[in-house]
């Protein structure tokens, strides 16, 4: 079955670097990623791999960064490059066509204002509505995310709510303008599993009802299996493997993806020993010339892996991997 949904957003060779003095940190390197209408794509990777920076680049929220490449947006008005938009144009885009749930819910809600006012404010920023209407929108969106007694809740402050409730408010706020794309940066990482299950179910339901696309950032493969159609695995600022969720979870090819999956303790069986990945992620200010995973990879061989960076090679329909030795690994069944 071929997927005929049109592409909504497309990252083309997007790179992000930060320069301090004469040292440059290459934090995101030539990312290519497309998100179709109604599709959920997960960006997964260890801490520091560049997931948040990638999403903030899409949102123009990295004032001190150097960003290269294009971020194409295929909206009703035709295609445009988001990176070329002016600050003012982008402001209306943000929260309008693209909604975002930030990694830290506590820091992204203003503790001094009632949540009803904060959501109404977000609505008025993007829609020509009266105060009264904005308040109604706020109430409706709290109801949409399953907060009981939404009218009464408009008058509460963030600190009066539990973590799960605050996360729902964040989601409500990101959805007031019915964005075509929702970027969710680790929206459940700080939550308990039973609350996480509620939020994931909520996001799935909202996506179905509103038909939006989602870029879902996480470091949890379990969460990815629940929510994503496609996965992009990041390591040290690069996408090292991407494909359909099933391809990645059941037939991972890149040694890093395999190692990560093997390192996770399983709920359904007890293993004597976990496969750990020795060593640490390379410093973005001093990246190795070859494959960035080579120093930790048990399959790395001199020259082939260490002299030049491996390209992202396409294996089959949408499954791509950045590894010089992939033809050997692709044939090996994943245990």
């Amino acid at each position, binding site marked *: 079955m071929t997927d005929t949904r049109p592409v909504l957003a497309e990252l083309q060779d997007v790179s992000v670097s930060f320069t301090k003095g004469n040292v440059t940190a290459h934090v995101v390197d030539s990312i290519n990623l497309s998100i179709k209408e109604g599709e959920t794509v997960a960006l997964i990777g260890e801490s520091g791999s560049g997931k948040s920076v990638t999403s903030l680049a899409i949102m123009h929220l990295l004032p001190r960064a150097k960003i290269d490449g294009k971020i194409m947006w295929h909206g009703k008005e035709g295609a445009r490059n988001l990176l070329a938009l002016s600050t003012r144009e982008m402001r209306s885009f943000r929260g309008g066509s693209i909604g975002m749930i930030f990694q830290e819910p506590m820091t992204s809600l203003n503790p001094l204002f009632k949540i009803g006012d904060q959501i109404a404010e977000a609505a008025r920023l993007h829609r020509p509505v009266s105060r009264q209407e904005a308040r109604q929108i706020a109430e409706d969106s709290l109801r949409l995310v399953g907060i009981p007694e939404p009218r009464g809740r408009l008058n509460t402050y963030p600190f009066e709510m539990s973590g799960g409730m605050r996360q729902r408010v964040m989601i409500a706020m990101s959805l007031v303008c019915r964005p075509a794309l929702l970027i969710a940066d680790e929206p459940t990482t700080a939550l308990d599993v039973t609350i996480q*299950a*509620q939020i994931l179910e909520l996001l799935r339901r909202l996506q179905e009802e509103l038909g939006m696309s989602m870029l879902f950032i996480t470091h949890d493969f379990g969460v990815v299996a629940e929510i994503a159609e496609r996965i992009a695995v990041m390591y040290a600022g690069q996408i090292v493997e991407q494909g359909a969720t099933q391809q990645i979870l059941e037939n991972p090819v890149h040694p890093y993806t395999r190692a990560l999956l093997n390192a996770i303790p*399983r709920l359904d069986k*007890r293993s004597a020993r976990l496969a750990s*990945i020795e060593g640490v992620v390379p410093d973005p200010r001093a990246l190795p010339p070859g494959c960035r995973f080579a120093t930790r990879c048990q399959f790395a061989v001199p020259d082939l892996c260490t002299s030049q960076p491996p390209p992202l090679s396409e294996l089959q329909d949408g499954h791509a991997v950045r590894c010089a030795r992939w033809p050997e690994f692709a044939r090996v069944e994943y245990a």
Partner: protein
Amino acid sequence: MLYAVPAGLSLRGWNMPDQFNVLLEVRNVRKFFGVRGKSVLPTAKYVQAVNEVNFSVRRGEVFSVVGESGSGKTTLGQMLIRLLDPSDGEIMFDGVDLMTLDDQQMRRARKRMQIIFQDPYSSLNPYMTVGDAIGEVLEVHGITKTTAERDQRVDDLLETVGLRSATSVRYPHEFSGGQRQRIAIARAIAANPEFLVADEPVSALDVSVQAQILNLISDLRASMGLTMVFISHDLAVVRHIADRVAVMYLGRIMEIADVDEFFDRPLHPYSQALLSAVPTPDIRRSKQRQVLSGEIASPMSPPSGCVFRTRCPHAIEACAGVVPPLELKSATRSSACIRDDLLK
């Protein structure tokens, strides 16, 4: 010891008179924290962090305490080695109630028990070199007499946890999260303890590093014959490391069971809900699950009767009436639920 357990043999299913086997026994332990109101008068408000908790830990086993945020795991763990005093109840360590010990006796007992904290970033003193942080423990307990002896032992310990000895002259901030957790572990095992409380030792770490630390803990357990209370909210980690599991909710224990039994057939409705909520990287299994509605109630005013009843899909009127006691349901498991009819 009378009933020495052969190395490598799990204590699971070991049917032996418990009094020979038990290292730690927790009897009716409570911890209430007073909450000061705005008025000057003392108010009668309490956080019921741990309530009527009973269990025992056998020598050589890893006993895991699981539960969601705020369920009382840390409070309980700290009472086990008397970093906190219980409001009520007894903690019997090797047959002696910790609360009856005077300072000197307690100091001697401390040598036998240690803790690893959750946060590898704040659990080490930033102004002390790694060598001094570990050496301090050796000196306090009089384990090494001379500086040379001390330094040698520090190097050995660092090697045991997989760090180079050159590490000892450096400061905590120079290390990654995983390395710091290794240092904290080296410090915890410095005095050769018999008993270790590990409070979420891998929660702050990435999975690749988490695997390194879990493997290290397994190795140490085998080589030192450690008895451990392993606190975690990550059930997959618990399945990997534990022999027995206790599930807490709002300060109370809902179920205690052998690890495989617990994961294969959870008995208590909360255990069932908790297990079904864990996302697994297995797309065939992931879509069917039971989602609990509602949120954890406040520990300042827990529901009457069963504390879980406000979220329990099987709650009936009677659940509000009495606090269900933690009862033995089979030789190897107990559960606190009056709806026995369901639990077959």
